């Protein structure tokens, strides 16, 4: 019990004193995760819109497949990306293994299904009259999707948060693709795992608190926007 309490006190000290290691790890984590979420959003929301809007055979199976991939195991993505970008893999020439770029690739793949899927569900949540109205007023496909997305914006926000949350909290890709290199690819989750293994519980606890804090801040910010 004492260990937990001491750890907690020292962890709070680390945060309050803006310990340089804690800060640099947090910043790096945010940089990597924001980048992968941004790329994920830029790819997934248009694709989600297209899938919703277009009617084609196999649409239902495709949506089912996307929803299944919500629980895509992070270590599977790690393995896949490792095979792709390892020196002997098809993308080996880019030398992406053990770099933040490789991690971003992996995290983006990981969150694409969630954002795409929630975009589709969110669009289905918009009353179909709006779609019909837009089309009957002579809107182009693109304009219609745009209108619908505006209507579904809360669902889209949720999609982005979920994607971000999955990317920032995963360990598999970060460890297998990043290699947990100190000062380069070491992020909050991999540090926590390593420092717990080394017995430095206070650093792990500090980073755990920060990880929760980040999620809280992002949720608060989004709630704020939603109320406007």
């Amino acid at each position, binding site marked *: 019990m004492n260990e937990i309490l001491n750890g907690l006190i020292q962890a709070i000290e680390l945060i309050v004193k803006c310990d340089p290691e804690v800060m640099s790890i947090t910043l790096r984590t945010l940089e990597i995760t924001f980048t992968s979420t941004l790329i994920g959003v830029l790819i997934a929301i248009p694709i989600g819109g297209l899938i919703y809007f277009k009617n084609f055979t196999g649409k239902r199976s495709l949506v089912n497949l996307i929803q299944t991939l919500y629980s895509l195991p992070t270590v599977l993505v790690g393995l896949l990306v490792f095979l792709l970008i390892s020196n002997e893999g098809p993308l080996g020439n880019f030398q992406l293994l053990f770099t933040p770029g490789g991690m971003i690739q992996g995290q983006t793949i990981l969150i694409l299904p969630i954002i795409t899927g929630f975009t589709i569900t969110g669009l289905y949540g918009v009353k179909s009259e709006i779609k019909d109205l837009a089309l009957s007023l002579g809107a182009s496909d*693109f304009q219609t999707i745009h209108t619908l997305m505006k209507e579904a914006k809360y669902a889209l926000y949720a999609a982005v948060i979920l994607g971000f949350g999955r990317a920032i909290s995963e360990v598999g890709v970060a460890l297998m693709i990043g290699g947990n290199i100190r000062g380069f690819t070491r992020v909050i989750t991999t540090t926590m795992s390593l420092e717990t293994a080394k017995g430095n519980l206070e650093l792990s606890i500090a980073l755990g608190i920060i990880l929760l804090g980040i999620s809280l801040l992002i949720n608060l910010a989004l709630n704020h926007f939603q109320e406007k």
Partner: protein
Amino acid sequence: MKKNWKIISILLVLIIGIIAIGAYTFTGGNSGKQTLKIATTTSLEDTGLLEELETVFEKKYPNIDVQFIATGTGQALEYGKKGDVDLVMVHSKKQEEQFVTEGYGTQRYPFAYNYFYIVGPVNDPAKINGTNATTAFKNIHIKGSANPNKVKFTSRGDNSGTNIREITLWNATGADYNTIIRNQTWYLESGKGMGDTLTIADQKSAYSLSDSGTFLAFEGKIKLVPFVTQGKELLNIYSLIPENPQKFPKVNKDAGMKWVDFILSSEGQGIVENYGKDKYGQQLFIPLSGKPEPNK
């Protein structure tokens, strides 16, 4: 026109995505510095020795960024066989020699050694204190089979240098590792690094085999004590192997050799020798300082 818009917007998105990946890798990955990627063992990383060597080395060569990927020896050599790193720092002589013979690495440069420790709970239920490595493992096998609730053994189970040595020791007792030892109820495989494995052993009051560096770094955090700490079977030699540039033209050969020269220099060997004295109160690694590899 409608169609074009769609195609253009998708293309734009994809292009932005690819540019973002590229730009980030570029700024985050290079920034004018060359990198030296070293696959190494958790036992070297967990003690903190590498961090200290890195700091001094990077002061000497400010344009080289040393990056460690800490894993087990087996995995580190696998990265080496794919050419994903520039150099490996590992501890399993047989595997290392094979790595060089098969042309993946240029040469073994042994630079330091210490001993593996057989550690266990302080009440020593298998009575291994004061024995040698083979007898100790035999006792754990016999007592563990008789009373698996009291006598347990926690293995790395991750094909690391320590795990490979442990398997060699089991086979030396005459009980085949794969057919006999691995199936025992008292035998637990953690599949994790040395620190985690020691923590699990501590929680379960189990015996384990640890490199002395990690164990000494953990002393005080766990209640296990070392029982068998000497002898040829427990000798643990660490070496550097640069990747073979003929096989992997992209490896950073120059930085790799600078690292090797630095570790083997009197400055590097001095850091290895003194490391741990102030942090853990004792020396963790014995530098070879140009002497041949010990054999006892």
